[in-house]
């Protein structure tokens, strides 16, 4: 459907640029306009990558949680099961699933800290989570100008 969201955001940016070129604009308004264009630029830069990023992160988070599930309390598997089949159809669904998976990652860290963080298997489980979180920071288009989203979700 044209114009795309990205094309419309580019159009809004052109309008803001014209407003900024008006010599009569006040200094405070000019600063606000600069901030607005900076935010718009960030949004345009990350827009197309948001859904692929969320899908990758959901798949990778799920894989980590499934791998460490045997180290976690029994109810963990039951809470994970519906998330394994949840949809990533659109950004809203993908975000909801992402929040749910990341909540479980946090709870898994709590459980490992209380139980067997110092055992070999506990350390491996902890390391799996943290390695994934580190990859997520690098892949997040909201945090990076040039994010590196891995090609193949592990789902």
């Amino acid at each position, binding site marked *: 459907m044209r114009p795309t969201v990205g094309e419309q955001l580019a159009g809004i940016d052109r309008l803001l640029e014209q407003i900024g070129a008006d010599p009569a604009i006040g200094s405070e308004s000019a600063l606000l306009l600069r*901030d607005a264009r900076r*935010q718009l630029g960030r949004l345009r830069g990350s827009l197309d990558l948001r859904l692929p990023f969320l899908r990758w992160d959901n798949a990778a988070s799920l894989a980590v949680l499934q791998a460490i599930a045997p180290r976690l309390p029994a109810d963990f598997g039951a809470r994970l099961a519906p998330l394994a089949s949840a949809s990533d159809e659109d950004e809203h669904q993908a975000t909801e699933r992402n929040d749910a998976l*990341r*909540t479980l990652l946090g709870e898994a*860290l709590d459980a490992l800290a209380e139980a067997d963080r110092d055992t070999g298997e506990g350390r491996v489980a902890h390391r799996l989570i*943290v390695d994934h*979180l580190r990859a997520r*920071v690098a892949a997040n288009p909201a945090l990076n100008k040039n994010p590196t989203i891995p090609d193949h979700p592990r789902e």
Partner: protein
Amino acid sequence: MSTPDGLTEIGSQLERFIAARMDPGDRPVVKGLSRVGTGRSRENWLFDLQWSRDGLTRTEPLIVRRDPAGGLLQTERSAEFAILRALEPSPVPSPPVRWLDADGSELGKPSLVMARLPGACDYYLINGDRPLPARLDLAGRFCDLLAEVHLVDVAGDTAAFGHDPGPEAARSELGRWQAVVARDSVQPYPELTAAAHWLDRHAPTSPRTVLVHGDFKPGNILLDTDDHVTALLDWELAHLGDPHEDLGWVTQPLRTGEHLIPGSWSAEDLFERYERKTGIAVDRAAVAWWNVFASYKTAAMQITGLRSFVEGRCDEPYQPSAPVLRQLLDAVTA
């Protein structure tokens, strides 16, 4: 916002507020009110207060710090006011406070009014345009200023400085910022969960209780045109705690450009000078823990900023940044 209407309203509020605290015949008038854009956590309004007494017209430059609708911090103006008042007889240069509207019932938002001292702040002064000897001199004097803060006699004055957490200062501060994360998160942050576990497991004990500034940086140090320090500003995060907290804040890897000079003024130089000035032995391992804590605290503030943005109370879409999260995850796996 400094719209003409906003100016009129705040100016009128200030005149009424101040008049109620001066002699009836003083007739205080607020002149030249303007908002300054510095400071991400407070609204700062500058003005000159003019009044008459004994047939003479007097003028005093003042500043009012008001809580913003939203931002990186939620702190109590009354706590900041009490600390600033307690600092007035101390050698630490700080702005004398005049009046407090703790609940915002008179000035619209919680606010404090204090003297406006001469000078300017520059975040990156230490690595700015001045010749190296001048920058080294400033870096050394900033270190001495931090030492002066830590040498303030706080014994027993909990009314002014708040609770003394004693040897458990690290866990006390961790708990404080964990509560901020819990209160303000609009989405889960397992990165911070991992970091909090690490911080809890490795928390050092405090060797002694000092007044911690909480956000010590050149950006909060007011210098006049002769490079004399006229005031250390922004005491809203000040509290009693471990001296290593401020040392960890100023040497945190993400802010070395503000405090250290590559090849000329290292963290070790700072520690050695600080030890000579204070007599407090610097535990390098403890500083390393506080370095990590500094990243956690920064992330917590960014989370508060994100909630403010989502709720329409501030215009900047803050969020825990990639460098901050990387610092935390590196510590967890070190």
